[in-house]
């Protein structure tokens, strides 16, 4: 494969430029890539970017708390890991910027939950309720939950 630019040297470098509405792919030789200024900046990896951003503290980090797991934003900045699925929305303004810098995007466009997987969330909640009902010996309640689970096609309930 020859370089797209000079059409002389063999292409050894593959670039993908994402422009609004279209993606341009370029196969360049090293010297043409240099001329375009494409080889100069050393790119930071997502993990390096994350580690850098986690160091930036702000005033309300201790007061910003996730209601799902009681993690504070300060704690998140220390460990770099979320405590539960609600953390994202709890720290949203901070996370939005974080994601933009790490991924150059803050919007998921990939696969979403299938209808079966959406049901899965309900099924799991019912299972948890059933477990609690049984622990509290609330058998009538448990029977009702079992009926609901059967409507989802789940029979193997403990």
């Amino acid at each position, binding site marked *: *494969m020859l370089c797209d630019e000079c059409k002389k040297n*063999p*292409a*050894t*470098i*593959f*670039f*993908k430029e994402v422009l609004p509405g279209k993606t341009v*792919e370029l*196969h360049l030789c*090293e010297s043409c*890539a240099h001329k375009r200024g*494409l*080889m100069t900046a050393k*790119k930071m*990896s*997502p*993990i390096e970017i*994350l580690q850098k951003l986690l160091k930036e503290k702000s005033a309300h980090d201790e007061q910003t708390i996730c209601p799902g*797991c009681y*993690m504070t934003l300060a704690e998140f900045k220390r*460990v*770099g*890991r*979320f*405590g*539960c*699925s609600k*953390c*994202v*929305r709890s720290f949203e303004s901070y*996370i939005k910027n*974080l*994601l933009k810098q*790490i*991924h*150059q*995007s*803050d*919007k*998921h*466009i*990939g*696969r*979403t*939950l*299938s209808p*079966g*997987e959406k*049901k*899965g*969330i*309900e*099924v*799991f*909640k019912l299972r*948890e309720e059933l477990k609690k009902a049984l622990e509290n010996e609330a058998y009538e309640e448990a029977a009702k939950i079992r009926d609901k689970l059967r409507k989802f096609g*789940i029979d*193997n309930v403990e």
Partner: protein
Amino acid sequence: MSNKILENIKWFTQNSKASREDDLEIIVSSRIRIARNIDDVPFEIKMKKQDSQRLITLVKSVLETKLRGRFVDMQQITPLEKESLFECHLISPAFIKKEKPAGVFITDTGNISIMINEEDHLRIQGLSRGLDFINILSEVFNVEEIIGADLGYAFDETYGFITSCPTNFGTGLRVSVLLHLPGLVFTNEVEKVLKGAIQIGMTVRGIYGEGSGIKGNLFQISNQHTLGLKEEDVIETITKLTHMIIDIEKKARDVILTKARNEFEDKIFRSLAVLRSARMVNTEEVLNLLSAVRLGVGAGIVRDVTLNTINEILIISRPANIQLYFGEILEERDRDVKRAEYIRKRLGGNGD
């Protein structure tokens, strides 16, 4: 025990109908993994011991009713067995060190593994010999659907699948390909080719050894970004890049095999001779010798060794695997002896 390891890696050592059979001397293997978490369960860092245990029970019971395979409780196996699962690419290095309850489900085909309680609740991974992303992706998503329909994933309309670490947000997808690039290493082109990969959001590392200490000319390319990209686009980008690298690697091989034919044939056959005759050999040496033989097989110079055999030796000669293969704990020196014995046997070697 030896059978169990061979069973674990049969995806890597046997021809499969599904995988593409060309360029196997360059494309060693490909891998896809996705990270998923259960919506209603605390994430790894906030999990109590009973949460971890319960998650294992739940996932295990779903998998055991829907898939054929075996569950391995990480707290019930020896450090050597853990190391071996890692050497067979079935678990991650971080998973070896886990102290909380954790387990891995491995399908009978050996190429799909589901780690429970890694950094995320679930890491679903698929492997293939050669380049076969389309098939692995559908196998991985099949497992994803099975678990998700019962337990429900943490998902956000804007941010996608929610993971423990923001670097996996969105698709939670990591796609990687393991390439054997002796031509590019020899012609000193490898660095600029790999720099190009980094520019389009890929990360590149030597699979054995880092920096200038890369062993066996093996390089792994994988995507860095998981948000703002469709799964298929990530796969397409990495596939195109792989084909471009194959192209350059083949040209480099042509150049060295034309300009220095005798030198290279000599190196290839000497490497094979050492593997067939050595009485002691360490892991590092095996990697480099196998690289030369693999090149020889690819160029049609070596005709009595298959890539499947080379793949098997690549995995079985690792430190933990060689011990489990012989079913005994071995000191480093004894490992070198046994490793040489195993390789001689596999390559029809001399003097046994």
